[in-house]
């Protein structure tokens, strides 16, 4: 496909995703956002009545899909300028969902309804960052270690391997998503998950191999060797299994696969940089080879623990 077309498609997709942000209506409520998983801050266009806003009986709050389950407030506090109110919840909220808030009797109006949600783009980006750093497939989920230790000796190999992995992972994840949602679920064939996914992954690898050989022989010569290694690897089969478990939609699947592949690339690159240095180091005979590689990987894993709890959006 032409590169220009791809650019247009990406731009259109972005516009669709961003549309809700531009289309937000101006009104009494100017801004509303999640402060933490137990707090929501609402900003009004002018000062509001303290008695109304601080009475928690005046609020009805629920998650968009199920209006019957009301979320309970523990308190509502109006800021000193009277323009913004912070709502404190008794239980942690699922900030990925859209929340609908209705206030009764505000500024003489019987009902004021508005929704609070994270921007969807931010949520998607969150999945990417999570798969890339917080739940890095190598250092936090311990997947794909055979290939990881096998190919992280030289930086060039590591980069090539990582790129091939990301490519195959994105393609096979999207295909698996399609099969899972349109064939496995409608026909109630969920128990065939493993067989179908492993078949799809092998098929993708074979297809990438054949296509690359014809379309770009130079790239094939530099990357082709790694393709065979890709099949027998748990990272690649793990992505479809995770997306089936979490019921991701197609954008989320794409982001998960991209993050997983990027995380693998990152891990391989980091490890290969250390490996190149280690060849010069004086390592005890008993630790030569795999043992020292494992200990280095353990130190990386400890460092990656530091990413847990990272939240950008």
């Amino acid at each position, binding site marked *: 496909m032409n590169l220009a077309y791809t650019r247009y498609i990406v731009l259109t997709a972005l516009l669709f995703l961003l549309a809700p942000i531009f289309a937000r209506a101006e009104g009494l409520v100017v801004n509303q956002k999640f402060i933490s998983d137990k707090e929501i801050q609402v900003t009004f266009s002018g000062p509001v009545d303290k008695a109304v806003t601080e009475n928690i009986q005046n609020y009805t709050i629920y998650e968009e899909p199920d209006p019957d389950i009301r979320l309970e407030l523990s308190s509502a506090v109006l800021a000193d300028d009277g323009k913004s109110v912070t709502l404190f919840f008794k239980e942690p909220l699922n900030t990925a969902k859209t929340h609908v808030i209705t206030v009764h009797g505000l500024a003489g109006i019987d009902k004021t309804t508005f929704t609070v949600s994270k921007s969807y783009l931010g949520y998607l980006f969150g999945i990417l960052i999570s798969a890339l750093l917080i739940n890095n497939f190598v250092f936090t989920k311990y997947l794909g270690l*055979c290939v990881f230790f096998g190919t992280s000796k030289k930086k060039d190999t590591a980069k090539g391997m990582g790129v091939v992995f990301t490519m195959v992972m994105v393609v096979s994840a999207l295909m698996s998503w399609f099969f899972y949602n349109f064939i496995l679920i409608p026909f109630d064939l969920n128990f065939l998950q493993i067989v179908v996914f492993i078949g799809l992954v092998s098929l993708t690898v074979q297809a990438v191999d054949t296509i690359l050989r014809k379309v770009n022989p130079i790239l094939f010569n530099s990357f082709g060797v790694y393709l065979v290694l890709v099949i027998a690897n748990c990272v690649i089969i793990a992505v479809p299994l995770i997306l089936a478990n979490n019921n991701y939609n197609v954008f989320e699947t794409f982001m998960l696969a991209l993050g997983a592949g990027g995380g693998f690339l990152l891990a391989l690159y980091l490890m290969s940089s250390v490996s190149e240095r280690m060849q010069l180091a004086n390592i005890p005979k008993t630790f030569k080879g795999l043992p020292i590689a494992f200990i280095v*990987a353990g130190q990386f*894993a400890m460092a990656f623990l530091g990413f847990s709890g990272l939240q950008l959006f």
Partner: protein
Amino acid sequence: MANDKSSMQLISRGILSENPIFKLALSMCPAVGISTTVMNGLLLGIAVLFVQVFSSVTISIFKNLIHPRIRIPTYTLTIATWVTVIDLVLAAYLPEAYAKMGIFVKLIVAFAIITMRLEMFASKESVNDSFWDGLGMGLGFMVGMMTIGFVRELLGSGAIFGYDVLGFKPLLFFILPSAGFFVVGLMMAFFNWIEIFYKRSKGLKR
């Protein structure tokens, strides 16, 4: 009787001289990922043993019917079938343990050790030998997993199989996920050390 001897040899080869975890260094993911307790190691070991034995036997039975060009996809599908079986069985009868092992039961399908045994052994040898070879490799994997689990559970939570043995928790670090790498690395170094020591002492005797 000759067969009996070779079956013992095949089993001991899988456990000792060609141990999948410590010697061949294959299927490392679960060895690091979920080896926090002996029980986890035992259960995943049983699952792998089951899959290994049954796929070895299956491939060995049908080895003359499989066209060499499509052998790898055939192996993969055979393994996937047996993994599906053990996955559903575990989910039905041991739901708690299954939840702990998470995605790793399904990931047995991608374990290099199983495909390797099918390619190197089961596709050439008789059904009987393949059975013993599969049993040996599966047991070797199970022993490896349980050894790592033993070290981590004993040092991490002072218990074996969930029973409190030491009465205190020596090093909490060992049940943290990242310690898996350290334990496997140190144990590999330990086995290397024994091997070097053994060779040296043998050399001195001669």
